[in-house]
């Protein structure tokens, strides 16, 4: 199944969740947020939120700035 993760097309296993996608990218425990099709997904529901074909997932973290 193909989804867009942080702007790049990726193949993920069918049945993947937002939590799976996040853990593929980073092992950081804190300071990370995820959105599914521009809606924030609270960390507590990452593993209960499935991603579907062509979904857009963004995973953000705090970086130096401002």
């Amino acid at each position, binding site marked *: 199944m193909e989804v867009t993760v*942080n*702007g790049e097309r990726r193949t993920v296993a069918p049945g993947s969740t937002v939590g799976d996608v996040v853990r593929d*990218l*980073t*092992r*950081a425990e*804190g*300071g*990370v*947020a*995820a*959105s599914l099709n*521009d809606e*924030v997904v*609270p*960390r507590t529901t990452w593993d209960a939120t499935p991603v579907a074909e062509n979904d857009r997932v*963004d*995973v*953000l*973290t*705090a*970086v*130096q*700035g*401002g």
Partner: protein
Amino acid sequence: MTSTHDPMTTAHGAPGAPGTAPDGHADPLVIAGRRFGSRLITGTGGAPSMQVLEEALAASGTELTTVAMRRVTPGSDGSVWDVLNRNGIAPLPNTAGCFTAADAVRTARLGREALGTDWVKLEVVADERTLLPDPVELLDAAERLVDEGFTVLPYTNDDPVLARRLERVGCAAVMPLAAPIGSGLGIRNPHNLELIVEQADVPVIVDAGIGTASEAAQAMELGCDAVLLASAVTRAQDPVLMARAMRDAVTAGRAARLAGRIPVRRHAHASSPPADHP
């Protein structure tokens, strides 16, 4: 938020005993009911390394520090978030890089989720070249974020009317620029900053454009409640030493403001008694 004519009366209470330099305990910065001993808010952008950044933050004495939200790149596990946590510094996520209210609102929500704070430094800029705030988008975003329960600290132009509008929609502070971001040009329009300070009932924080310590002190002398700066420290030749200088400048400027400076005169005014010639 201190008025020009009566600098000793502040909403924060008495600054301390006469002749005592006010410290963070006697004269805290209060934003949205939260007290800070330091009136220096720092950014984290531009530091040559995470280690230098950490030392500079410690030397600055800051208790509140901005971070930006960006897409995770694989393998980037050591983060600025860890640095802030280790040093007990509260994170202030910003919306840098947003050009529309919709973008800024989305970024603020992600910052809240990632960092567990509903405080946001709201930045909505008009273009890459000037990085000046877009007043229309800024006000729109501020209103929406306040409605969503955020504590909104907007980076704004040095425009007293816009500052008033931002306060009126419920912002917890107003943060007028001294000069464009990263320019180090210092305070270009002290008169406007004074106007903003005179009318504001929320803290006024000078944000952006400070280049060196005397300019940070000047912002405090004008009656601003705090100074926010990043590049002036992180891009200085010795960031840690400059961080210390900024800490001292903000403290000195605040003390001078509370002390009440002498009036400016066109002619000399002898400080010694007249000579007693025989």
